[in-house]
């Protein structure tokens, strides 16, 4: 890895320069198009309109509450999905006949668009938190299961053989060998799962939530406040990127480095 002469120097951020340039160019072109006045301002707001709308939402404390509500739902839903997915994946790998029988359905359901679960969720749970959680869970569960099962299958049998030989079995074998042996793959699997959960949740929120990031997008549409619609889209993008980079990519890198799967920095 390249490093600056001092850890706190600006060199650390040098790799971000191309990304920032693209953002600046994007906003510049956007502003230019707005100034050409092809479309009316209320259909095609300027970057400044969007920013000031976000500022208003921020000062009214609406934005932070929405972020909190969405992330709380995501946390709970994704956690349940991880637990259920881990159990299902383990059963699939451990009981091969069960695994073979259920694999095509799980694979099929993984491709099923999560939004299509919404009508069912609304009938079963009404316009409630439970319905939002249901969509989040069901929208990510199958992806989590498939990738967890794949991760578990990467464990070299010789590790299990050696551990059984030293007297380990049952839960001890799972916790002390299977899970740590598959850890880098399990983290990748969780990362895939979270992106499914995130999309499912935002989708469901746009359709029927009364608080949250997705709700604010839809509220903007209802009131024909395009600056809010676009601003909330930017917020959703940023939150997603931050969670992905900040939590999952970091843990992934940490786990791989510990195993020597990446050059240590």
């Amino acid at each position: 890895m390249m490093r600056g002469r001092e850890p706190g120097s600006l060199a650390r951020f040098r790799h971000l320069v191309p990304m920032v340039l693209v953002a600046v160019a994007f906003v510049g072109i956007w502003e230019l198009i707005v100034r050409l006045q092809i479309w009316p301002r209320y259909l095609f707001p300027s970057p400044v309109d969007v920013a000031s709308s976000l500022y208003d939402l921020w000062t009214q404390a609406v934005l932070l509450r929405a972020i909190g509500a969405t992330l709380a739902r995501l946390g709970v839903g994704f956690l349940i999905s991880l637990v259920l997915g881990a159990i299902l994946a383990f059963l699939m790998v451990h009981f091969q006949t069960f695994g073979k029988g259920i694999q095509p359905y799980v694979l099929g359901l993984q491709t099923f668009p999560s939004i299509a679960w919404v009508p069912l969720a609304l009938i079963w749970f009404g316009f409630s938190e439970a319905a939002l959680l249901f969509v989040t869970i069901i929208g990510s569960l199958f992806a989590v299961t498939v990738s967890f099962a794949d991760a578990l299958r990467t464990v070299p049998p010789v590790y299990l053989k050696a551990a059984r030989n030293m007297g380990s079995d049952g839960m001890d074998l799972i916790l002390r060998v299977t899970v740590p042996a598959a850890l880098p793959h399990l983290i990748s699997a969780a990362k895939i799962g979270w992106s499914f959960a995130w999309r499912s949740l935002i989708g469901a929120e746009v359709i029927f939530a009364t608080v949250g990031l997705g709700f604010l997008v839809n509220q903007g549409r209802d009131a024909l406040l395009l600056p809010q619609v676009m601003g909330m889209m930017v917020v959703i993008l940023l939150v997603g990127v931050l969670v992905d980079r900040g939590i999952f990519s970091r843990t992934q890198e940490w786990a791989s480095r510990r195993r020597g799967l990446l050059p240590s920095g």
Partner: protein
Amino acid sequence: MKGAALKLVMVGKRFNGKAGPTEALRDINLQISEGEFVTIVGPSGCGKSTLLNIVAGLETPTTGWVEMDGRRIHGPGADRIVVFQDGAVFPWLDVQGNIQFGLRVAGVPRSQREARVDEYIRMVQLEKFAHARIHELSGGMRQRVALARALVLRPSVLLMDEPFAALDVQIREEMQSVVQDLWLRSKTTTLFVTHDVREAAVLGGRIVVLSHRPGTVSAVLTNNAPRPRTLETPEVVEQIRRSNEILKAEVQWSNQPKIQL
């Protein structure tokens, strides 16, 4: 730490593969005294690893049985530890963590565990690498970890499945002398599988030559060369010659067209 005696009675193994059933082993009878070092040598595909797995209890024989100190074995146990060809040391643990794995499973209290782990780390001369991760070690060092991880459990029987096959020649010879020294000190009953006749002759007090599939015992040679030995010890050289002759005859015979009955 005391070795155990092993007795293999009419051990046979069949696999039901995709290409129909194959017979890997047939009627293996062997008696191994406590503290003995026996090498098993044979062409690849003679079922020697299968034989070792059966003694370890990781596979069950289709016919016959294995006795340890007069009692039949059922399933794996920490009294019979295998050192695998690629070591199977755990990459998510450091050297120390690997060596204490079996002790933790056995519930040995921490205070005792640490002392014992240190003792065996010294024994395989990895003191400087106690906290190294596995990916930082060379192949030979990894096998030292595997060896220490096995010996720290003070098994009655040590089972070695071509442990040095993947190593460079110099490292392999160095590891052979490490194993020999450790055995001279511990006198753990050892069953060592290899396809390398030279290795079998340097290490084995007896050399069991297996035939090609199905594996049967084609000869048992007694090797009284004085220890510690090297590949240059005259008795070892003679032993290598004899073993090679038997193996050559075995291979020639198995390459001949078989008469269909």
